């Protein structure tokens, strides 16, 4: 039939209309998938949230045995000046026996082993552990205790007991004199 000749090649059963059909549905499919990119991407932290990425704290007033809370990315950071007894307690632990094996030296800067800077965010589900404020419970290992689900951290803020999988996270920071720049 003359109609068939104008709409495709009848000998192998493929018509021009089939090509148009596949091309149109493919283009619509690719377009549909491409639309997902902005729809998903808008959920990520926006530019203003990302802009709050560094914090500077003066730690001159923090005496051994004291700790302060700072704010980094809208989350608490614990800056703790360890006493010699606390440093000794942290170093006495058999590192291989730890859930997340790390030494105190690995968690502090060289020359500032007494300065323990960690996120105040429990690695279990994100509560703020107690132990940085005066008079707060420090848990069975003298570091931090998370009241939400009972995680105990030691004097190097390493997880010792309870459901948390990791040690309290040590953020990137640098020390310039008495000023700590986090982030």
């Amino acid at each position, binding site marked *: 039939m003359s109609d068939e000749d104008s709409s495709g090649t009848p000998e192998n059963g493929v018509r021009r209309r089939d090509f148009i059909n596949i091309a149109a549905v493919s283009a619509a499919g690719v377009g549909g998938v491409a639309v997902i990119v902005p729809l998903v991407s808008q959920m990520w932290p*926006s530019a203003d949230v990302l802009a709050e990425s560094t914090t500077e704290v003066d730690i001159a007033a923090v005496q051994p045995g004291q700790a302060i809370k700072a704010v980094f990315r809208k989350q608490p950071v614990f800056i703790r000046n360890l006493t010699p007894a606390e440093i000794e307690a942290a170093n006495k632990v058999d590192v291989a026996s730890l859930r997340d094996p790390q030494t105190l030296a690995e968690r502090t800067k060289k020359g500032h082993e007494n300065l323990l800077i960690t996120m105040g965010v429990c690695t279990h589900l994100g509560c703020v552990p107690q132990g940085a404020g005066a008079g707060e419970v420090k848990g069975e290992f003298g570091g931090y205790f998370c009241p939400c689900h009972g995680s105990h951290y030691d004097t190097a803020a390493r997880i010792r007991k309870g459901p948390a*999988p990791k040690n309290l996270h040590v953020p990137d920071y640098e020390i310039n004199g008495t000023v700590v720049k986090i982030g």
Partner: protein
Amino acid sequence: MSFPWSKEYKPSHPLMTWLDEKLPLPRLVYNAVGGGYEVPRNLNYFWNFGFLAGFCLVIQIVTGVILAMHYSGETSVAFNSTEHIMRDVNWGWMLRYGHANGAAAFFAVVYMHIFRGFYYGSYKAPREMIWLLGVVIFLLMMATAFMGYVLPWGQMSYWAAQVITGLFSAIPLVGDPLKEWLLGGFAPGNATLNRFFSLHFLLPFVILGVVILHIWSLHIPGSSNPTGVEVKSESDTVPFHPYYTAKDGWTVGLFMIIYSLFVFFMPNALGHPDNYIPANPMQTPAHIVPEWYFWPFYAILRSFTQNFLFFEAKLLGVMAMFAAILVWFFLPWLDRSPVRSATYRPLYRKFFWLLVADVLVLGYLGGAPAEQPYVLISQLATMYYFLHFLVIVPIVSSIERPDPLPFSITESVLGSDGAAKL
């Protein structure tokens, strides 16, 4: 179900005849919840909770849409706008207390509805789809309730958002980025609150859609009944209207008495005082617990404290908590007993009540602090929970010798089918 004796919709007014030809909506309602829906005559009060659940959904949507007119989902004003509703908006206190206690009432009613399904084997063939859709509704309810709880932006709101999104960070590799994606930041913030408000408004209507599917799939086999014996003849059923509309109306009245007691006399009894403190990202409240309706699942989450093989304790807890509900999806195939109702299953019945006790224990532990001996007991209770579904139910359903079933629904009610002529 449309039985041969089901009555057909007959428009009584020329206007209704005209409408029936153009858009047979009255006919749909008549067949769904009117005189055209034939229902077993022997339903007990446990069958009223489905209707009550629908009623609760209506309460939540009506109060919720109104609250949204007065609320602002911005972290700097969200807490104050909630207080503005409580103090300044006309009747705002009633709408908010009605909404907060309405959520608790919705869960209470739905738990009774699920209890009914478990005891009377409502999940069994040919009603599996109704059950599966019901579990979907329950999951959607949990998500909706959680996001609604975040909106007042008090201390409990903030830390609920932190902890629940923290669950997702347990997932290996993608967990932390996923958490940031869900929150739109590194910790709950304005982006989080806004998206939760948006979704909290949307999801109830998704629930409404799934409820319609739930009822649609119910109308294919028709309602189950306390004997678990299928409908055989006209004497086994009565029309939904007026018989069950009247009975449901009566229980709506009873429900409103209890609901009003909470709303008007103890509106904060189920809440936490800490949520009247504005959100503070620097300080976690000493004792954070979810609302009572999440306690059993929260206890399961917390019962995992040790790593196992290469799985972190945190991940195990999260998986167990989700698995505790996902296992319900498999119940129609785990329970292979052809007898539906536990009334005729002496062995299953004993284990059923043990499970109820186990869930109540888990519920108590979920509200208790994360200390011994609560942790150990919740570990044992969690173990039994999964043992019930994965081991006990399949074994019992294959070894049990059920009691004799009545010949028909009519016989179970009247003693013999001869006495059943209406």
